[in-house]
């Protein structure tokens, strides 16, 4: 089958790989590019576990055609923080018990980061709205909301 070359930026680094016809970005990132941080939960656009940003906007990797990111800027939870220094959101999630099984966490963090990048001082309602496309089944949303607000309110150390 004819494969399509895709070159794009992933978390600030140039990447190139071949995509299968109809392959979605989630499968492409995980199997062909090797970024395992976006997770498969539904393949239907319901759960948000595969949330990534494309040119700064959150999208669902399972519903994005892999070849459509050619030339685009893609960011995943794998790009949060710098080296050993974690993103304040990651620190805050650790401090506020905002991850239990950890499966929804990368997508949740991508949505939270996109929110704070666009709106550094969100209200509680805005936080809820921002993560409303990310399902969590075990942590419970309350610690997650608390962790995000702690960063927004500057109470979480950077």
């Amino acid at each position: 089958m004819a494969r399509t070359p895709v070159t794009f930026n992933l978390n600030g680094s140039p990447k190139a790989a071949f995509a299968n016809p109809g392959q979605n970005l989630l499968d492409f990132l995980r199997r062909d590019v090797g970024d395992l941080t976006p997770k498969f939960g539904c393949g239907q656009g319901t759960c948000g576990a595969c949330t990534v940003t494309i040119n700064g906007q959150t999208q669902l990797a399972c519903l994005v055609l892999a070849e459509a990111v050619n030339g685009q800027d893609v960011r995943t939870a794998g790009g949060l923080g710098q080296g050993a220094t974690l993103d304040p959101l990651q620190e805050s999630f650790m401090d506020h018990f905002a991850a239990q099984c950890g499966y929804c966490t990368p997508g949740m963090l991508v949505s939270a980061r996109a929110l704070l990048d666009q709106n550094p001082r969100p209200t509680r309602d805005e936080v809820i709205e921002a993560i409303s496309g990310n399902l969590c089944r075990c942590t419970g949303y309350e610690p997650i909301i608390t962790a995000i607000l702690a960063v927004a309110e500057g109470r979480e150390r950077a």
Partner: protein
Amino acid sequence: MKNMTTDGPMVEFRKDLFADERDDNLNEVGKPTRRQDIRGHVTGRSPFFDDHLFNGLLHMRCARSPHHHARIRRVDTTAAERMPGVVRVLTGRDVPVNLNTLLSLLDFGLDDEPILSETKVAYKGEPVAAVIAETEAEARAAAAAVHVDWEVLPHVLDVEEAVKPGAPAVLDIYPNNKFVYHGKYDHQKLRFGDVDAAFKTADHIVEGRYQMSPIEQAPIETCGAIAAPEQNDRYVCYTSTQALFFSLGTAAKVLTLPSSRLHFIGGTVGGGFGGKVDSIHEPLAILGTMLTGRPVKYAWDRAEEMQVGAPRGAERWYITDGVMADGRIVARKFTGYFDAGAYTRLSSYAIIKGVGHLPGPYTIPNVYADVYCVYTNRTPATAMRGFGITGVDFSIEAHMDKVAETVGMNPIELRILNAYRDGDMKAHRREAKNCALIECAQVVAEKAGVTISPALKAANSLTGGGGDRGALPVFTATDSEGRVEGFTATSYAKKGGGSGPENLPPVALRPTAAQPATRPAPQPRVETARPAPQAAAPDNPRPSEPADQTQKKPARSGAMRFSSLSGFRRR
């Protein structure tokens, strides 16, 4: 609200309760602490089963029954085998022991469920073939090309319809659609005192019918496993299982491999809630690897997770209470139906657990329960958070409200009045200890602004229990209703030594080996009913021996103990 602030306590510690039973100098409780695995979670590095890359990974998907109930005349895989990317198509004949052996591993019943069904399907979505292909899309397309010649059978989807005479038999080994308990009864019995006699003395009889639908665990990570050849003639299996050693044992039995040749890696589970204990994926993924020599992934997509992933089973309960005008419940009778779906999985166990929990956290001197594990043509049920308890607890508490309404009492007061207190005798003949329902109810009343009587506000779990409330019933009415013949307590007998065929491979327990159940006519009761014991009779001495002598002694000797896994068994 307290839990909505960003740094307020989410938990309120009531240090005033049971203060002298507890050392409050705690190192961890009440103090924030980081989970040991949380760095992996927030960096996305925690290795879930699918976070392992293999060169040449193959993908497995199953062809499934579109029917609730059908006989399989023929499975034709020739078209599927010719589809692009297809490496191999498996049917039941390829599975060394085509039977999920979870029940026998747990010592909890006859193994009854094929890995890939060959003769019959009993629920919509039951797998009949497994396609292994180069890509997931190719496996999906080829699975759709597996042709099955079905003979559609009548189906039954309701528990009470299923136990009626003439209902379609879901499983050949249980022609009446009821699991057989201990090789003796078609239901699990609880008999404590004499409910019928107590009903005659009660001021009110309160009846209720309650039911709940199946509940899908819906983990964000769907169930799955990846198997691959490993060095030293072993196979490695990365799995989402919640029960690594169930899965290891099941795979070893299904594949007739010594478990030393299986290297299972799990422990990082993307949400389980009970839905990942059934070891559905591991045996097939490993078998795929054994037959192709390549890594094989078998995972459900979301639709499969919802359709064929085993839920918490549906339950239906009938409850009848005998209640005195002052709110004391003197008798409680249950008839319960657990919907196991098409195969037993863990439903037989759930019922044992549920019956041990009756009549709820209340001291009721006469309790009776008949609880049926019923087969229907629905998705098999399995574990989910407190399964066996949740549905009946919902029923009991809804019923408590109904009782409160009947006697014109505040529902919180009714609960305090009837609550277990330390030293009381529970219906399953264990002493109640460390009770705290009264205190919980009092705090609820306080938080909800509900006024309760001074006497009940002053009540506590530490006093007022025991004495006659701690005594076993003087008389317990027993019966042989639901006695079945032709079954052996096969799996139980293994532990105690006795009649069971020990050490037989699980294949010997295939449906054809089992005998049909017959139902003898119910035996008339020989005992004369006695008046219900007074809930507060002051000088009823506690008998020195268990008072259930009216029950027949077990034929085999050996002390009984309660195992959380398998209920009562002999040691």
